[in-house]
């Protein structure tokens, strides 16, 4: 008996949301056809996220989400946001030190003088609380005013390395990179299947520093016929050899012609 012709689903480009900071950039304006043109906007009001969402410069920017300028723009903002957080931590440390001195001197002297300590803490608030809110507020301003090609208040940008990820594969993959802490040079461990099974490790992995020494690119070559599944590899900071991040690679179903089906 003749077997009926059978159709198969197309191979998915990916199977998971891209929730990284770049993910939002891939969002389009929405499905065509667009909403009914006779529907005007709701009377009054602005976008709940406030000003900065919808200006022309950013609309143009969103139209080409994967352009080099877009990536640079986001990279810069990620770096400067990191700097701001680092700044926050540093300020916290300094305040903690000064508070510590004050607290310990109080303990040595009048340990029960809690009201005085509280007064000191209110003062401490002006050192750290204001900075805390303002730092995060600065993020808001950046979100609202930054446009491509503009660096806003980026401090010590060179401290944060730029790590790229390059995957060579003959089958569809999803890859992500997470850095736990800054590291300018890395060693990449082989990628191991999770959960461990019969799948071979992916061993052709390397880190290629860029010319400036302030970053580089992780390169992964997936062998032909590598088993479908999830793989993880640890990134070690050089020369300390301590964990600095992880790379995750998901190998999706093999393409049609490699499945060996009739």
């Amino acid at each position, binding site marked *: 008996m003749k077997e009926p012709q059978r159709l198969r689903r197309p191979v998915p480009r990916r199977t998971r949301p891209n929730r990284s*900071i770049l993910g939002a950039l891939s969002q389009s*304006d*929405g499905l065509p056809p667009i909403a009914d043109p006779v529907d005007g906007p709701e009377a*009054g009001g*602005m976008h709940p*996220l406030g000003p900065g969402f919808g200006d022309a410069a950013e609309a143009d920017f969103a139209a080409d989400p994967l352009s080099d300028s877009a990536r640079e723009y986001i990279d810069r903002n990620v770096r400067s946001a990191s700097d701001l957080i680092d700044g*926050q931590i540093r300020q916290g440390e300094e305040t903690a030190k000064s508070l510590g001195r004050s607290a310990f001197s109080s303990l040595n002297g009048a340990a029960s003088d809690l009201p005085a300590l509280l007064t000191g803490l209110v003062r401490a608030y002006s050192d750290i609380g204001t900075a805390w809110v303002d730092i995060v507020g600065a*993020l808001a301003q950046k979100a609202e005013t930054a446009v491509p090609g503009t660096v806003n208040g980026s401090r010590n940008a060179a401290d944060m390395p730029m790590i790229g990820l390059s995957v060579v594969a003959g089958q569809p993959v999803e890859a992500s990179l997470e850095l736990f802490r800054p590291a300018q040079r890395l060693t990449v461990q082989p990628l191991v299947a999770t959960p461990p099974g019969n799948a071979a490790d992916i061993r052709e992995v390397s880190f290629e520093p860029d010319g400036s020494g302030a970053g580089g690119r992780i390169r992964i070559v997936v062998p032909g016929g590598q088993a479908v599944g999830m793989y993880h590899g640890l990134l070690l900071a050089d020369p300390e050899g301590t964990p600095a991040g992880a790379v995750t690679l998901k190998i999706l179903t093999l393409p049609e012609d490699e499945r060996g089906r009739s």
Partner: protein
Amino acid sequence: MAEQRVKKVAIIGGGCAAVAAAFELTRPERNGEFEVTIYQLGWRLGGKGASGRDAETGRIEEHGLHLWMGFYENAFRLMRDCYRELDRPEGSPIRTWRDAFKPDNFVGVTERRGADQWDNWAAYFPPAAGAPGDPLTGRNPFSVKGYLARCALLLRTLISSVQDSYPGSVEPGARDELAFALQTLVASAAGSARGDQKEFAAKTLKYGQLAASALVLEALGAVRWAVESTAPAAGETLVALLEKLSAVARRQLETLVAKNDELRRVWEIADVVLAIMRGIIRDRLLFTSQGFEAIDEYDWREWLRRHGASEASLDSGFIRGSYDLLFAYEDGDIGKPRLAAGQALRGAMRMFFTYRGALFWKMQAGMGDIVFAPIYEVLRRRGVTFEFFHKLENLALSPDGSHVAGLDMSVQAKTRGGKPYEPLVDVKGLPCWPSRPLHDQVINGAALKKAGWNPEAHWEDHSVARKTLQVGEDFDFVVLGVGLGAVADVCGELIAAEPAWQTMVQEVKSVATQAFQVWLNKPVEELGWDLPPINISGYVEPFDTWADMQQLIRLEDWKTDPKAIAYFCSVLSDADIESSDDKTDAAKRTSRHVRDSAIRFLDRDVAHFWPKAVNADGFRWELLETGNKSRSAKSGKARFETQFWTANINPTDRYVLSLPGSLKHRISPLDDRFDNLTIAGDWTDCGHQAGCVEAAVMSGLLAATALSDYPRLSDIIGYDHP
């Protein structure tokens, strides 16, 4: 080149996800690439969202309360496209999507004030620009950085507004901003003392104290964190001291707010916002590739607590309301509130910061009438085939386990003369679904009606035929759009073949729900309700949520119109679901349990909302509007028999939970383990992991993408949300 043949798609189920997939696959611009058949259990589309019209009064009977939120971009886009294509003639009821959905800017919560004392609080959220489903203009707003920024501004606004100016005096031009929502929130907390300048001065002073106390606490928290994260060993003594100071400051703050409701409410919001901001920064949600999923192992309250939210804030109406809204009680046990923190945070951010038009949108008739009847009409016009009364019994795998080879169906009823079943009825000119099958269209209908046949019931096994659909002949692709509760029953072969499916059915859980509706012959204002028409949650169990549905009166078909319609709903504990070998009898006993709970609620608890509906003997049963005929003879508590209640215990009717640690076990519609199958439903890994219309529609869109690479993932709004 050979012409491609039409691809046959069997869609199992007719809920939001299934019909969204059908809508996408049959868009006119696809030029008939797909030939779609929807196989539907029973007599109506809708799944958990199905509603029906009572034959006598035309009253709407729902599974529960369905509110659409202003961030349901994909769901609104679907409905707007649907109504445009439907193109009802001028003068028709519910002609456009604007007729179908109306903005609702109030959200209410109840607050516990003691063992038996509760307060109501209504907050007004101002209209935001645009309407859900409009094209997004400019940069996509769904970024953690954007949310963090708005949280910071919101907090600053909150503190500065209460400190520097009286909340009632909003600056000109500020009314459009979210800040105004907060000020209004504060103003509504300020209550009756608006015109009292002396009182105003005292309030300002107290707000100042509040702000100072809050900031001291914040400073303590920040310092402690800095110490712990930089020098954990050396800082132990200092941390211990800070603990003591925190306790002192917190006691001061709690003493301050304990005496004043408005301060307490402001503090609770500020406290939660602060915890969110701390959490986002400390857990590095700004930068992680997982987005908010990174914290999905935690319970929402647990995560907020980790980041310093007080117990009082964690028990506040807004936090309790977030659990109620998502029926987030494991096993239906109100003692086990459990909600994945990442999804809760995603939901809260989207709900409050990305709504368009209004925070809520209320349907202007039943969900079946507003959503599923128009979609049914459009799909039929496009050539979609509907096979009602078809119950999937088994999804058969091919011998090599690679694809679905067959679909085993039970046919629950056949139509007279083999004609297509015409499922809709006309109620005041509006096509609606009936609340019972249209027996006159099916063979042996009178006998089935007399026997109380309910083909939607899981335990109903009446069958007039069996059929098996074969791959390559009857279908090429399958969209499994059934509710989660049916998956274990019909997918045994898939579960045995694929460990991920096995884990999914074990770990992704659901909960039964209960609801009742009453029609009153007095408006609620006359019964003592003094706030705007409202949806209010966070109240005492067993019915924690009330929605005023007075907008439906004109759409129903009573001889004498009721003056108010009220919906109540909540979870139903698994412990309250009767079990027995006789499933029909067990279901009836569970239904009686819900009825008795509703009667008890009206007698004992509803006075909090409607004080004048209750006298010394309990609820005034004569307030219930009964309808036209035999119902009016009832008196006393028996009069409640004329109202509507439901125990949603069918496996497919159970609400899907977002339990901590469970979301990673969901399977995506894009997953291609079985090469001619995709799945659709709010139980799938669809980007927004909550039981709601938006998640279901997103899942349906993903199912269409899985079969055709369209729509593009970037076109599904919020799929790549952090």
